[in-house]
């Protein structure tokens, strides 16, 4: 492979403490290398006047799997427009909030992103998720398997099974589904909804299994720590979208009891019930708590005004919101004693009091949090808005006057009263590089991604400096994936197959007996088919690289 030099760019590489220094970056064989200034290279790109960052990493984006595909099918209206495309490199694929997998890969890469992680992979649907991600070109990908609502897990908790056995089960589940982490969604609540329970607070019992979300969260977090899983338990907390849910969010953080946890789309979980509409921002309460809890990281799930669709495993909350759908349609499913899915199309409106406040709460969280290493930039694509709105979101965070212009368009009661008005902070390029690259890489345990140090993978985005940060981040000058130029000024240059990140866990294989017996008694698929082997993963993932990460357990984790 050829040697490439990016000459004279301003480099933002927070993982290595580089904050806007002008320096050259060398690449060879897909890796970043140190090049002598006189060394001859095959390609030299003059990137003076440009900002150089590692490729973007989205650690929470619904890009593949059953519910995403149902959302596509139910929204043909999202696919009417066909944008101009390169007929040689791009296959027909479109959609804005429910893009086809091909379109997803093209658009992320054109925006300077080189990796994306599906946060809600059902074990029962894992092959399908890996297939869709395998058909998402250019991007490396991985997924978190959803645990904490399977009847087997809840049954083990309910009968007081030894923790070690449960830890083995979690390790087995990660291995069987070829996951990169574990997500818990409305802990116990998806299962409780199957037993017709409509609400489940953190210390409330599941109506059938008599276990609490607190118990579920703590057990899973402990299991991941002991298995040595790098990504903290990915938590979609209880009571999503409910006014006053800050109480359950704070209780969920307490449930971690100091163990690592990542609270996802936290905006949807930071609501108070003050004010005339009994719906208010609890961003300050949240941030106070998170600042004091160094074991906790968050991503925001910012909402963006316009049409989108919400797709979630949280059937309990999605069904409760089905009547708010716009257009009014609903897909929901109870799935294989494993989990569920609910899809509600949604239109966020500036003139809606609730939506306007949600928008402000998201931005407040970004701007009030003092440690960017623990805040990741997401819209929970597509639930808060499509990932293509990231450049707009970056401008909102970096440009106070632009933010004020948007604020002025909101529902007048919100525009006149929110805390956001008073927050003058503008994020720097260094902050953005942390929130979109360095922090997600660190939180996922990707040592050689999200950074530009020698030896790291040559996933690089080069943006031409522009005071309009939205324009700047929408169309990078160059994007490299593993040292290969994949996009130039918004046009694709190459469409390689991405790789799959997954964990190889250690567990006592004796647990397979329990799982086999359970499958025979209760499930509809042979236990042997519940496991995805490496060769099968390779075929599901379209022959992309298998980026295995071995993790080693032991008490207290790594």
């Amino acid at each position: 492979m050829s040697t490439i030099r990016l000459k004279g760019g301003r480099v933002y590489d927070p993982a290595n403490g580089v904050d806007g220094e002008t320096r050259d970056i060398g690449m060879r064989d897909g890796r970043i290398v140190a090049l002598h200034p006189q060394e001859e290279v095959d390609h030299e790109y003059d990137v003076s006047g440009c900002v150089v960052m590692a490729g973007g990493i989205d650690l929470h984006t619904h890009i593949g799997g059953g519910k995403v595909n149902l959302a596509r099918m139910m929204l043909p209206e999202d696919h009417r427009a066909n944008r101009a495309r390169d007929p040689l490199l791009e296959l027909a694929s479109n959609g804005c909030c429910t893009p086809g997998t091909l379109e997803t890969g093209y658009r992320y890469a054109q925006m300077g992103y080189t990796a994306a992680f599906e946060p809600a992979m059902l074990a029962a649907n894992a092959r399908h998720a890996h297939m869709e991600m395998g058909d998402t070109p250019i991007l490396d990908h991985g997924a978190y398997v959803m645990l904490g609502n399977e009847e087997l897990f809840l049954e083990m908790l309910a009968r007081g099974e030894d923790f070690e056995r449960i830890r083995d089960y979690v390790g087995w589940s990660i291995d069987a589904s070829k996951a990169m982490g574990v997500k818990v969604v409305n802990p116990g609540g998806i299962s409780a909804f199957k037993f017709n329970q409509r609400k489940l607070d953190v210390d409330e019992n599941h109506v059938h299994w008599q276990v609490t979300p607190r118990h579920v969260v703590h057990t899973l977090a402990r299991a991941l720590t002991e298995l040595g899983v790098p990504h903290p338990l990915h938590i979609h907390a209880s009571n999503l979208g409910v006014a006053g849910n800050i109480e359950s969010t704070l209780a969920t953080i307490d449930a971690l009891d100091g163990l690592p946890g990542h609270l996802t789309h936290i905006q949807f979980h930071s609501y108070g019930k003050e004010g005339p509409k009994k719906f208010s921002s609890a961003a300050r309460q949240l941030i106070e708590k998170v600042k004091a809890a160094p074991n906790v990281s968050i991503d925001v799930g910012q909402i963006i005004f316009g049409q989108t669709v919400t797709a979630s495993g949280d059937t309990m909350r999605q069904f409760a919101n089905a009547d708010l759908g716009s257009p009014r349609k609903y897909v929901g499913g109870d799935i294989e004693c494993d989990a569920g899915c609910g899809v509600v199309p949604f239109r966020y409106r500036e003139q809606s009091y609730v939506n306007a406040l949600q928008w402000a709460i998201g931005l407040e969280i970004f701007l009030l949090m003092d440690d960017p290493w623990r805040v990741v930039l997401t819209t929970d694509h597509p639930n808060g808005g499509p990932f293509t709105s990231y450049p707009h979101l970056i401008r909102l965070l970096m440009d106070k006057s632009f933010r004020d212009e948007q604020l002025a368009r909101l529902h007048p009661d919100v525009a006149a009263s929110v805390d956001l008005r008073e927050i003058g902070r503008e994020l720097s390029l260094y902050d953005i590089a942390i929130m979109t690259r360095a922090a997600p890489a660190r939180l996922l345990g990707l040592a050689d991604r999200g950074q530009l140090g020698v030896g790291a993978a040559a996933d690089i985005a080069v943006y031409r400096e522009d005071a309009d940060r939205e324009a700047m981040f929408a169309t990078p000058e160059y994007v490299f994936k593993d040292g290969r130029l994949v996009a130039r000024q918004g046009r694709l240059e190459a469409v390689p197959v991405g790789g799959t990140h997954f964990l190889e866990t250690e567990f006592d294989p004796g647990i397979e007996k329990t799982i086999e017996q359970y499958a025979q008694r209760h499930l509809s698929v042979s236990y042997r088919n519940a496991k995805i082997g490496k060769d099968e993963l390779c075929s599901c993932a379209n022959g992309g690289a298998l980026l295995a990460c071995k993790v080693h357990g032991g008490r207290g984790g790594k």
Partner: protein
Amino acid sequence: MNAPTQTQNPDPSGSIGQDWTCPFCSLLCDGFRVESQQGGLKLVGSDCSKAVQGLASFGPVPAAPSATVDGREVSPDTALDAAAERLAASRMPLFGGLATDVGGMRQLVRLANQRGAILDHARGDTLMPVLRTLQDRGQMFSTLAEIRNRADLVVCIGTDAASNFPEFFRRCAPVDEAAFARRTVFVGASAPAGLQGEVDEVALQGDLFDAVAMLAALVDGRRLPAPDAALERLAQAMRASTYCVVVFEPGRLPAQGALITEAVLRIVMSLNRKTRAGAFMLGGADGLQTANAVTTWMSGLPLRSRVGPLGLDHDPLQYATDRLLEEEAVDLLLWVASLGPKPVPPATVLPRIVLGHPALAADCAAAGTVFIPVATPGINADGHLFRADGVVTLPLRALRDDGLPTVADIANALQARLALRRLATEGTP
């Protein structure tokens, strides 16, 4: 042509399919074995008529059957050249049948992109009412394991379920230690023999449309001037059940079946206001779920879409195989039937390329047809298929090697030939 992915030739007799997944209906049963007997394949552990019949179409391992062009036996390369030539000459091809696995469909979508082809499945007519309802109102579904563990009431609308899905009731039979008793009610259909638990039938007073409309109104608690007493009792039972599953079979719905699937959705949504319920669709035969899922995820739109350099165009009514062929709105048919000797390619005056089970050779001997025999996932090739619920995807493993290429192999080879032709004529790949 690439060699297909296959396992070793097994012993002439004995058990060869410990981990066998049956490809012959969309329930994808993975609990049975297959034994090799006198060169044929014998099902062990079930008498499922679909599986028995499916296996019977794979006799003793044949010498690799020949490809044909206009009825003449030709080498594989000659057949591929002829197919590529006809595809290249086509301005509006239709890719129909689409009875294939995930790998085959992935490559067919790519091939379709090269030629701006329309994609429809042999059972597209049964998909569209369901899709229409999904696009207009949504869906609320359950899956086999949920039915097994929860459903105290199963209501089959217009189907006995067992005729076309012989293993359905066994697959979702209550677990041994179930805390509930199962009751199964058939509306407008006869109960199959030997069903466990309480079984009832509700005869139709009018047609199926009337029955589901009335049932939906009754479940909703509306007062009707002259309600059918049996439906009224059923509605009450549904509202009193803890988890009611409404089963329907898209392949058996009458014309305008979307009205029935919509009513089923209304019933289920309405029940879920107070108790729990879900619908279960017995559809997806011949790889329909698979073809639709792959097309949707790659492009963003479901079947009956055209994919190509100009982007996507989805038309559930216009892009129906029968209509396109009848009106000669397309100029070539590429038909895929790799899961068995059916679906048979429709007769047409248009040129045809058929990638099919070897037994289709006889239907493809006419002039104007290129026939390329292909392997069947789960028999003589590995692969993946989607189950009826659209959620679970299962691996299929080859039982033996018949020396046949897969659909993916052929679609790949055709893509390469088309790219070369383009390179030669336009200077771009």
